[in-house]
């Protein structure tokens, strides 16, 4: 069950961690550095099975990005996992309101990340 996963995060560290964990599990990983970049990668990608996005990002934050995906006729059915920390319940709620499918609590261990992907990826 190899998926195409798009990760959107402005932190290179987190991007590398996501890439390492996801590609180890056999997923194909696409990466973007912020929301705007995310929309571009998504537009070019053709098909993406799961999106994982951070909230705090320059140019377009996670809420804006989720909003964008959910209002796109083509991509609105893609499950979106947001990266949050446990100390941000309000952010989690806002992300859900914006249309996030689920969330991953940072810092994540690879097993939890993969479980979350499995739980939302068709």
């Amino acid at each position: 069950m190899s998926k195409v996963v798009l990760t959107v995060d402005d932190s290179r560290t987190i991007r590398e961690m996501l890439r390492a964990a996801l590609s180890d599990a056999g997923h194909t990983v696409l990466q973007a550095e912020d929301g705007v970049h995310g929309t571009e990668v998504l537009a070019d990608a053709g098909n993406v099975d799961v999106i994982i996005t951070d909230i705090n990002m320059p140019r377009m934050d996670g809420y804006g990005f989720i909003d964008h995906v959910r209002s796109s006729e083509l991509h609105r059915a893609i499950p979106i996992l947001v990266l949050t920390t446990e100390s941000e319940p309000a952010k989690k709620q806002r992300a859900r309101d914006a249309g996030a499918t689920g969330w991953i609590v940072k810092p994540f261990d690879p097993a939890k990340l993969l479980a979350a992907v499995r739980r939302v990826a068709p």
Partner: protein
Amino acid sequence: MDPMESIKQTYFQECDELLVAMEEGLIAMESGEADDEIINAVFRAVHSIKGGGGAFGFENLVAFAHIFETVLDLIRSGQLAPEPDVVKCLLRAGDLISDHVGAARSGDTSGIDDGDVKEELRGFAGESGDEGGEEDFEGLDFAPMQFAFGEEEAAPKLPSVWHIRFVPHASLYAKANEPYLILRELACLGDISVEADLSRLPALCSLDAEEAYIAWNIELRGEVERPAIEEAFEFAAEDCDLTIEQAEQDLPDLPGLPDPPGLPDLPELGQPEPLPDLQAEPVKAEAPADAPVETRKEAAAPAVKEAAPQTIRVDLDKVDRLVNLAGELVITQAMLAQSVQDAGFGATSRLGNGLLEFEHLLRELQESVMAIRTQPVKSVFQRMPRLVRELAAQTGKQVRLLVEGETTEVDKTVIDRIGEPLTHMIRNAIDHGLESTEDRIANGKPAEGTVKLSAEHRGGRIVIEIADDGAGINRARVREKALEKGLISPTATLADEEIDNLIFMPGFSTASTVSNISGRGVGMDVVRRSIVELGGRIVIVSTPGKGSRFVLTLPLTLAVLEGMVVAVGDQTYVLPLSNVVESMKPSASEIEAYGREWELLNVRNTYVPLISIGKLLGVEGATKGVGQGVAVLIESEGTGRFALLVDAILGQRQVVIKSFENNYRHIEGIAAATILGDGRVALILDVDGLAGLCRDRSGGAMPAELQATGS
């Protein structure tokens, strides 16, 4: 490398960048120039530092970043005004988080005293100090979370039967959740039987594809605990009606109906929901899309303009190889052009024209390649605000740092090596340059002293300036000190600039007591040497009562030298043009013998030592006769003014500097080599080295002028 280890390296690299962004933002906040985006950027920086730090278990770092982030979040959301005292505390917090990162990198995380700042931050965050323990816990809250699951699994599980009623709302689908996947998760927990409740499904003609009509009744049997089931529904819990009931053993069916505590039953549930959606139906695709599209445009449009330049990371070696190759191409072209000319093709022939075009392209290529080595001075300048803050605190002076031109690009080697001299000069400016607050007020100056650090491109060189509005150089005292140290003779008459320049002499230090700040064993002589090593020079402009300016002039790139090509005997040498003042054809009457070893050249009634390169370097066929050849007047930072005797000046040109010390060794008087248009190697002369060589040859004695003008 262990993948985690390599990600950790990435993390520290990223931290360096984030710390820069943070510092910039905080400084903008300090000057009241910060808009929302800047505050957001600061928040994000701290947030990302914390995020990565958590992943690597840097507990102290995370705990500190957490409270820091909390305060920034309050400012960001407008709940806390960035008053001066708040920003001041944030700046200190910025310094501390930088220390924390440094500590995490070095592996010694013990020695950082962040208690006071933490306390202050907590105050701003409205948390009392007593909650320290809780706060620390909060910083690490993820760890207990993960352990909880481990214990869960260890607990003995009893076989049980669960009855679950799952009624998805339309919003569940809108968020791309999928009941099938949830059922799949449940199936992993035990044996399930699922029954779809289609009772609300309308006739096809009135079916809304966006609506949720189907519900499920699920029976799950197995050694399953409630939390495991809840976890399967975790993402969906808000977008469905869910009841999870543990059935009496083997009690089958009929679970759903009595369960919902106070929730409306099915028909009621169905009614209110489809209603708003039915209204939206005709435009169902656009309706939800409309508003967001607007905001998206807003968000995306300016972003395109501001898009950060895309960058790649490249090994410096690769760049240097390119720089070298580009240099080779230029040389090869020159050789080719020479051959073409020798073969009788004129500059206006098609071949000549083509070669000229080729030359332009190559020059452009060379410049572009060299530009790869350059970086904004920002990475050095950004270290200074912290230094200024610390010095201000230590000296009790009020100091404002103005930074200009930090986007000016300079060679990477300059970036690597300019930090220390700059630090030293800023220390000096604050420690010696600026007066105490009381003195400033007494002299009618603003209480706050200003230190300005700026960089710009000027005439093919980089000019970096450190200016203060302090008292200026106290020339009487400098002179006195120089006398005391025996650096000048009591009878010497010195111009103001010459006195100012005394501070560059080795062993000179103006502070009568070695201060904690400037007195670290390096003087301005070391500063000057570092600048000279970079091919630059340093000039002081000081006005009593008004302040001092130190002006550094550096070459744009260290790979290329603007040179004067000279002939000595059968050899060709290159003199750095930056050392050349003028050239003249001296007559025999203008040259005087001085002692046995030296000759002095009369330059408009000032005598300077005249050194024959041919004699000094033992070049065959060099000019020997007095009154022959050309004297090139040299001014060097290290030696002062003197003249070099050559046979002829061949021209000026840019040459690519080639070090050969790696293949041979350092040669006194030779800086490096270059390759000329004819493909032959020419040596680049080191004028200070030549003077030194000359001094050694003559047993150490130097004509007085050589020293007196050395200032």
